């Protein structure tokens, strides 16, 4: 990721800070950095969100398209994740430089959305075997300040919340043709149920302890981290996937405790995100006309 050059002394300082449960920016090991969230800022997209987690800046745009369901899942819609690491974040991403990282994040995200209980693709089906919605979730990484996985998953969840899918009714006509009719009212839309949508939490192992929400500097000091995908259902948290990244290794006990830490952090994070989205929705009003701050603030 973003190459930050740290000397041994700086690394030791960070390491000691983590050991004492008092990190460089004053946080404890379980604290997140402040976030800013705004939805509905890209007018060409069906849904969008911008999330800024300290220095990490993520813009998500969701576009919808009508497609034919795959023959193996005739009653399911489709969702596709695409991540673009903009060269604005670091010159290393120029050309095809960011593709590896982008692939890693989008694969992890796709895996966590795979379960039918985390994200129900059946709701995206219009007419089984004939027509379904395809969601293109396009993620743009504009600045890297550490903890990309968490920021991306939160921004995607917020963008899905903001997504409005036009209400269509389908009828099968003679000869297997499908007749789709679109509602006349542009505000007549379906929303996506987001309560169970998973979020990712990165737990980073620095020295012998684990922290959540590592900054870019802290990521440099860590050899291994584990990303857990967590979905909420009936007030309980469920793991949807676990992904390990980095070159180091975890002891079994450490891994178990980090997954536990990830789960509890995700629970809190999810709760806060839903509160923030509800506030944003109120600011929106019914017809979505409001002042957009975007990057001007």
């Amino acid at each position, binding site marked *: 990721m973003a190459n930050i050059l740290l000397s041994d002394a700086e690394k030791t300082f960070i390491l000691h800070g983590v050991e004492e449960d008092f990190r460089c920016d004053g946080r404890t090991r379980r604290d997140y950095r402040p976030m800013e969230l705004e939805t509905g800022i890209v007018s060409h997209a069906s849904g969008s969100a911008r999330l800024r987690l300290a220095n990490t800046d993520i813009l998500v745009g969701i576009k919808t398209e009508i497609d034919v369901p795959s023959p193996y899942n005739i009653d399911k819609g489709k969702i596709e994740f695409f991540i673009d690491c*903009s060269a604005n974040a670091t010159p290393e991403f120029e050309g095809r430089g960011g593709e590896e990282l982008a692939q890693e994040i989008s694969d992890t995200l796709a895996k966590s959305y795979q379960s039918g209980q985390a994200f129900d693709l059946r709701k995206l089906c219009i007419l089984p075997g004939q027509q379904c919605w395809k969601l293109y979730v396009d993620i743009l990484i504009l*600045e890297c300040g550490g903890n990309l996985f968490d920021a991306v998953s939160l921004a995607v969840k917020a963008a899905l919340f903001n997504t409005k899918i036009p209400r269509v009714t389908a009828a099968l006509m003679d000869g297997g043709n499908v007749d789709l009719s679109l509602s006349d009212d542009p505000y007549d839309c379906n929303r996506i149920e987001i309560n169970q949508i998973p979020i990712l939490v990165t737990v980073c192992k620095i020295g012998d302890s684990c922290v959540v929400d590592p900054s870019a500097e802290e990521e440099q000091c860590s050899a291994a981290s584990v990303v857990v995908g967590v979905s909420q259902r009936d007030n309980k948290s469920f793991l949807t996937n676990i992904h390990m990244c980095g070159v180091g290794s975890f002891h079994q006990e450490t891994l178990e405790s980090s997954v536990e830490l990830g789960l509890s952090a995700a629970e809190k994070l999810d709760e806060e995100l839903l509160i923030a989205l509800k506030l944003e929705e109120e600011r929106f009003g019914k017809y979505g006309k409001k002042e957009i701050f975007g990057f001007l603030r």
Partner: protein
Amino acid sequence: MANQDLLSDQGLRLDGRRAHELRRIRCKLGVFSQPDGSAYLEQGNTKVLAAVYGPHQAPGKKSNHSEVIVNCQYSMAVFSTGERKNRPRGDRKSQEMTIHLQQTLRAAIKTELYPRSQIDVFIEVLQADGGNYCASVNAATLALIDAGICLKEYVCACTASLANGNVPLMDVSHLEEVSGGATLSVASLPSSNKIAFMEMSQRFHLDHLPKVLDHALQGCQQIMSILDKAVREHLALVGSASDWGNIAK
């Protein structure tokens, strides 16, 4: 759509502007902290982010001992257009845009001041609604200023087109671009009235060229004063802690 529809009898365009009016320009310098310079600019519904890294040491084989290398990359977010794009960069159009940007910016940067160095300018179009090249140039200028790179002067770009066969239009939007006639994109150095780059998309009669060009240049002038105001405001804000604010006023 016929060419006639671009301008109504009352002299109003499709989006309610008059023929000689620019779209609303809003901009901000220093949006990000990691790049050496960054800027965000929206011109109507076209929204662009620019980031500048450098000047830093140029890689060995590219290094030029007499002047700086200006390295650009133009990319568009896949959700920026009405129809989803398949890839953000690397297609013909973006590569062409990259070359044009490079050409324009080299005309404005004092290249001789930074030998053996390289300046990276990265442009990201978040939303495209016509005049992408112009918005990119304007945003890049602001980002270069934010990075503290020596420029000869502001470099501003503006488009112009022709409606009803004889009325020049300033700063055309996407709808006017696709439904109207030729579009002339001009990047100029407005203070010295020089043209750094010019491109015309279709044919039109030579007789019309002077007045269309004139409109585009006027647009550049107006954009320059908007950018200049933004730069002054930004510097007054940034420097207010050290009391620069009073001097800049």
